[in-house]
Structures are given as structure tokens and as C-alpha cells.
């Protein structure tokens, strides 16, 4: 560690505070937008496909293939079509977030006990009504877990996006690498990494809160 002086990290942090806040905001923003996109698409897909075996397997398998592709490669694949910057980052992150969202929507909707569905139907509810007023509330905690995992994945992968001129704290991590050997290199990389961890943990806590607040009272543990 001799090359680097960690005692300087606090002054460094204060000195760069404005920039750190800006990059953190960008990081949060890019994650929020892409997870939102993935949620709109993924939950709709799940709602549509949960009772159609072929479509269900096909969508989960496709989302699985996307998640298996290394993030660096997926970002690279976006570049010829979408150029550099925010757009390829948003699309890549949204694609990565799909799997946990689709899978948990499908699983959540399918896990509703048949007896419950039958009583709902017996009360004269239409299939759409059963889906929206009975299945969705029961499946909600599982879907929310999917969203949480998707967000965690997106926060981590967003840091690589800096390499394709994307936004966020990854910029600091790569800056650290490009300054290898310089006094501030470790400060940059460490600040970027730690801020990303903090953001991820804050989001995790936020999701626990949302789960508490939005889970239907009847099924709260």
C-alpha cells in the first residue's frame, strides 16, 4: 500500500464533494430509469405469460440468456447501434434487470393457491379481476423481491458503463485505474466503489421499507 496515502481520502472526499454528489445522482438516476423500464415491460410480460407454458418458459429462458452475457459484452453490442453514453447504458441495464422481474412475477402469480383462485372465481370475478385484485396483491412481495434483485444487479453493472462513456460513479473507478501510480488513484477508485456500495445498501433498505408499506395487510407476516 506504500504508494498511496489513505489519510488523504477525507480531504479528497470533501474537495470533490460536488462532483461525487453529481456522479451519485447520475448513478441512481440511470438505475432508477432502467429498472422502471424493465418493470413496465417485465411485469406486463409476466402478467400476460404466467398461464401460458410455452411463452412463460420462452420469456424466462430469453431473459436468462441475456443475463448470462457478460456486461462488458452487452454494453459493447449496444455501441454500433446506439453510440456511447446514456442510451446504451439504459438499454443494457434494463435488459439485465428483466430476468429477476419476469421470473418473480410469473412465480408469484403461479404460487397463489388454486383454492383461493377458485373462491374468487366462484364469487363471480372475471379472470382479469382475479388477476388484478386477488393474484397481484398475493404475488406482490415476490415481485418486489424481483425488483430489489434487479436494482442490485443494475447498480453493480452501471459501474462498468463508465467505460462506454456512460454516467455514474464508475467514472471515478476508471479514473483511478487511468491514474495508476499517481497519488490520488486509490482515492478515486475507493470513493467510487464505496459510494456504489452505499447506494446499493440504501436501495436495499428502501425496498424493505416499501415491502412493509405496500404488502396487503391480510398477508403480512
Amino acid at each position, binding site marked *: *500500500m506504500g504508494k498511496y496515502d489513505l489519510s488523504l481520502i477525507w480531504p479528497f472526499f470533501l474537495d470533490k464533494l460536488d462532483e461525487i454528489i453529481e456522479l451519485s445522482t447520475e448513478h441512481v438516476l440511470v438505475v432508477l430509469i432502467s429498472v422502471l423500464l424493465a418493470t413496465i415491460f417485465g411485469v406486463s410480460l409476466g402478467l400476460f405469460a404466467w398461464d401460458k407454458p410455452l411463452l412463460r418458459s420462452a420469456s424466462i429462458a430469453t431473459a436468462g440468456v441475456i443475463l448470462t452475457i457478460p456486461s462488458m459484452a452487452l454494453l459493447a453490442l449496444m455501441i*454500433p447501434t446506439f453510440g456511447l453514453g446514456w442510451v446504451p447504458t439504459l438499454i443494457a441495464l434494463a435488459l439485465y434487470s428483466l430476468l429477476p422481474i419476469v421470473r418473480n412475477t410469473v412465480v408469484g402469480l403461479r404460487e397463489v393457491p388454486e383454492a383461493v383462485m377458485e373462491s374468487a372465481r366462484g364469487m363471480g370475478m372475471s379472470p382479469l379481476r382475479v388477476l388484478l385484485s386477488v393474484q397481484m396483491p398475493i404475488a406482490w412481495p415476490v415481485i418486489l423481491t424481483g425488483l430489489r434483485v434487479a436494482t442490485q444487479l443494475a447498480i453493480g453493472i452501471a459501474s462498468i458503463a463508465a467505460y462506454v462513456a456512460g454516467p455514474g460513479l464508475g467514472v471515478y473507478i476508471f479514473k483511478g485505474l487511468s491514474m495508476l501510480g499517481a497519488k490520488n488513484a486509490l482515492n478515486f477508485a*475507493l470513493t467510487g466503489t464505496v459510494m456504489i456500495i452505499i447506494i446499493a445498501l440504501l436501495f436495499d433498505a428502501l425496498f424493505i421499507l416499501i415491502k412493509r408499506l405496500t404488502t396487503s395487510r391480510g398477508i403480512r407476516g
Partner: protein
Amino acid sequence: MTVQATENVSTSYSQPSDRRGGFYTAKRFGTPLLVIAALGGLLLFLYSRGEPDKIEAFALNWDYMLAKIDEHIRISLFSAIVVALIAIPMGIVISRSKSRIVSAVVLGLANVGQATPAVGVIILLALTFGIGWATAVAALVIYGLLPVLRNTITGIAQIDPNITEAARGMGMRPLQVLFKIELPLAVPVILAGFRTALVFSVGVATIATFINAGGLGEVIVVGLKLTRPAVLLTGAIVVSCIALLLDWLAGLAEDALRPKGV
């Protein structure tokens, strides 16, 4: 197919397979067909555009590409094996200990670890220990430890206590219970963790190019820096195919290794 819900990042990649029926199902051939189609399409695209220019020719030749593929697979597999050798025994030891503090600490670390970006880990390691192959392997191992460790612990924890009690009642010693009952029953979950670690390795190995550890990330970076989309696409498609194929092979191994009774 009964899919399970995703609970955390470690289980988001691969889940214990729940294959029923024959070994040779249609699903089994999906991945290889996809890989063949992708590589075939890539080759067709590359050959249809005629002679590569001088810069492209540097990367787009068989010798260079095969060398990079070799580097990439080598580093991914090596780290995945190191991960298995470290994480599975560690998981067993942790699941033996009755102490709640140990498991709380492990789970806490696992949460923070999950939130740590791979680029951050690899670049911080490079800044502290220098760039190169060994550092890259260290980063890959650190990154892959978590899913295998977590799955080993949960795999053992989810076993019906009645089964282990029955085994003890039959006079089995603790080690016999572990090797004959608990581990075989936990194998599907542990292997799912290993598959996740493998997929992680291939992905993180791509980033390892930033610290001069070679691999196919280098091809992507060359394409990016010299603005040669063909080179960039080649690197990205080939590395994706490797990830898919390794995951597929691990899936085969998972089904083959699973005890027959489970």
C-alpha cells in the same frame, strides 16, 4: 418447468435444475443451437464484408482470436475451480458451527459483497497489488466465492432435520452423515451456486482486460478504442457464447452429478 423465485443476486443467475423426465429434452439443445447460430451469423457477417483493413486484421485472425479464447477460458475455469475448493469446505465448516454470530457475520458480508461492483474490486486490487494475471484471478475468486458459499450453507440448512436424525439414529458418525446424507442432498443447490460463480467468472474475466490480464475483453477494448465495430462485435459475441456454453455444460454436469434418488 417449475421456476423458483429469485431471492438475491446469487440466485438470480442459475437455479437448481429441476429436470423431470428424459435427459434429452428439447430445452437441452436450445443453448448449443443459439451459440451455433450466433457464431455462424458472425462468421457470415465477417466474411461477407470482404478483406479486413490493417487495424482489423490485427484482431480478426484465427491465431489471435484462438489465443484470446484460450486465455479467457483458462482464467475463468481456473478461478471457478479455486472458488469451489475454497467456498465449499468453508460453507460446510460454517454450517457446522452453531454460533449465530458466525452466520450473521457471513450473511452481512455477503450482503455488502453483493453490492460491491466487480470493476471496483478488480481495479482496487490492481491499484494495491499491481496489475496482471494473478490479481485478476484474485478478483474473480473473491467475486465468485459468495454464490458458492451462500448456496453451500443454504443447501445444507434446507435439509429436513428428520433425515439427518434418522441417519444418526442408524448409528452413522457425524462425518458419515455429512458425506453420505447432507452433501448429496445439498449437491443441486451447491452446483447452482457454482454455475453462478462460473458465469460471474466469465463476465469478470472480460473486465480483467483493464488490468492487462488478456482475454476477450481485450478484443472488445481494441474494437472500441480503434472504432472498429466489427472487432468489437466479434469480441462481444464470442465471449457471450463462451458464457452460455460454460453455463450449459455446468448444467449438464449438474444433472449428471445429482444423486439418483433426489
